[in-house]
């Protein structure tokens, strides 16, 4: 680490890991409910487990992104964070809002809007929290010695993510409009501005890990985020096919969302090529695994599996089935889960001074988590395709089909166990690094 204030990133990462474990726990609650073991129904019915599972996912990723920004921005801008104290206040208030929301979900305090279950009053607190975060980051950048493309793209992603939260707060009487603008948040996040955040982190990591010239890496970063918006903005149409809006979206959404995988393909090629070009001297092999892994798995999960159901002719049959859950898991994991784990793997040794660069535990964590997650994706996928045929093609009753496919959830739970073992090993590694210390400060060349 080069700046003392970067240490605050550690606590965002630690919070992130805690939520990841909780998210997985609620995933198991749902997995077991699906094979008939729903003993917790009284206290944690499926809809509670699901809201907690998906919201914790979003919050651990956001906390990871924030930690990444607190680590990356000082180094890129060559400036200490403007206020470390406020950064801690921001973390604590983030945790407070998160905990309140999650507890609320157990007591029917929520809004049943997928992914945006946080009730409106708490939304305002989220807004304040994010404003505080952006204030610290943007001021640090503004007052810094240099403004790099990497820092700009990362900050731009974070700023737009905050702005796009707002359309989701507008109240509507019509379910159709509610859903229409909900996608401005959900879709334009994961297939738009979050890709900027991912691109920014990826570019930072590649510059550090491969030693390739910054100018080359940042040029391609522009191309990638250019492709992202070019396809992703109008690609929003793939959620508008069948919710009660005009047919124009079938054409526009179909064409542009079919182009979205290009951005992910570009990201994968970019990462692999920079690695090839680089000097391969950096000792932090684990960070390299996660970095290249994120670029490749996101192409499979988001690019290929997204494409698999994005054309209107296919989506007509798969819309609202477990096929969506298949894609949702590998896409979130590959793109955003893995990039957060990558920046953590890179920064931990620098923050704590313990250079656990290539432990076999760390490598096991990588492989088990990924193999487990790919297995889960296959289990969801087989269940989903069977569901599409039985229910949508042959017209069988919903619950009859669910009984037919419940065996795939046994497989899901087995693969989830492998995945969880990997995650636990990762967290053990995290813990073994100890806490950040000023002794880890390096000279600023």
């Amino acid at each position, binding site marked *: 680490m080069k700046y003392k204030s970067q240490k605050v990133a550690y606590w965002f990462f630690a919070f992130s890991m805690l939520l990841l474990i909780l998210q997985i726990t609620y995933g198991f609650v749902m997995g077991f409910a699906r094979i008939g073991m729903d003993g917790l129904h009284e206290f944690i019915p499926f809809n509670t487990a699901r809201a907690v599972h998906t919201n914790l996912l979003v919050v651990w990723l956001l906390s990871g992104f924030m930690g990444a920004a607190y680590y990356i921005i000082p180094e890129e801008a060559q400036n200490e964070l403007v206020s470390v104290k406020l950064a801690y206040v921001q973390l604590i208030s983030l945790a407070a809002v998160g905990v309140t929301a999650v507890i609320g979900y157990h007591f029917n305090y*929520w*809004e049943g809007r997928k992914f945006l279950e946080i009730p409106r009053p708490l939304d305002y607190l989220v807004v304040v929290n994010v404003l505080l975060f952006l204030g610290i980051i943007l001021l640090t950048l503004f007052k810094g010695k240099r403004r790099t493309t990497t820092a700009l793209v990362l900050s731009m992603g974070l700023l737009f993510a905050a702005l796009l939260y707002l359309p989701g707060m507008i109240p509507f009487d019509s379910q159709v409009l509610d859903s229409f603008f909900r996608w401005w948040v959900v879709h334009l996040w994961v297939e738009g501005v979050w890709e900027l955040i991912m691109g920014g982190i990826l570019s930072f990591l590649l510059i550090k890990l491969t030693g390739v010239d910054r100018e080359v890496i940042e040029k391609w970063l522009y191309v990638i985020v250019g492709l992202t918006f070019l396809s992703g903005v*109008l690609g929003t149409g793939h959620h508008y096919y069948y919710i*009660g*809006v005009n047919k124009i979206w079938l054409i*526009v959404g179909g064409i542009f969302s079919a182009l979205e995988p290009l951005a992910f393909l570009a990201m994968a090629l970019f990462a692999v090529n920079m690695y090839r070009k680089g000097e391969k001297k950096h000792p932090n092999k684990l960070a390299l695994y996660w970095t290249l892994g994120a670029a490749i798995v996101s192409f499979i999960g988001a690019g290929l599996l997204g494409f698999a159901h994005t054309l209107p002719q296919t989506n007509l049959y798969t819309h609202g089935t477990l096929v969506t859950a298949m894609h949702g898991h590998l896409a979130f994991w590959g793109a955003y889960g893995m990039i957060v784990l990558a920046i953590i793997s890179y920064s931990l040794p620098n923050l704590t001074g313990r250079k656990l660069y290539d432990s076999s535990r760390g490598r096991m964590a990588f492989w088990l988590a990924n193999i487990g997650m790919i297995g889960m994706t296959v289990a969801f996928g087989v269940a989903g395709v069977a569901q599409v045929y039985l229910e949508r093609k042959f017209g069988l009753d919903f*619950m009859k089909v669910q009984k037919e496919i419940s065996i795939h959830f046994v497989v899901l739970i087995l693969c989830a166990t492998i995945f969880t073992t990997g995650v636990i090993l990762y967290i053990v590694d995290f813990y073994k690094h100890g806490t950040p210390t000023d002794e880890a400060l390096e000279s600023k060349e």
Partner: protein
Amino acid sequence: MLSKKQARAFFLGGTLVTFLIFIGLTVYSLSEGNDQSNKENLTASVVRGKEIWESNNCMGCHTLLGEGAYYAPELTKVIDRRGEGYVKAILMSPVPWQPNGRKMVAYGMSKNEAEDVVAFFKWIGKIDLNGFDRIVSPLAKKKINN
């Protein structure tokens, strides 16, 4: 070879153009003549029904318009499929409904609340879904045709 400046122009230009088209299409598809969301039939009862739907996070188990969770049946066209009485009975039941072993939360709604939710479902059932309703609820179609 592409320069960094050109790459940036590609990013900024592409973003601006697609964003403007996106706003344009949004206005177009929500405008009077093109609206197909059945908004003229939004009654107070439907809105109360939506409120109940939301405040209980029904979408955390069911899908509606194909959106939500995959644990419980799709509810677009549910009134055509099951009839009003059946749906009301489920909503008003004081014990978890579980004809196939999978439990629903016992909401024990009042008659008025259940009627609002039914009104909401009926309203949903009349939205023009570009053909999705025929696929998502083949059983409803069979019932209507017989």
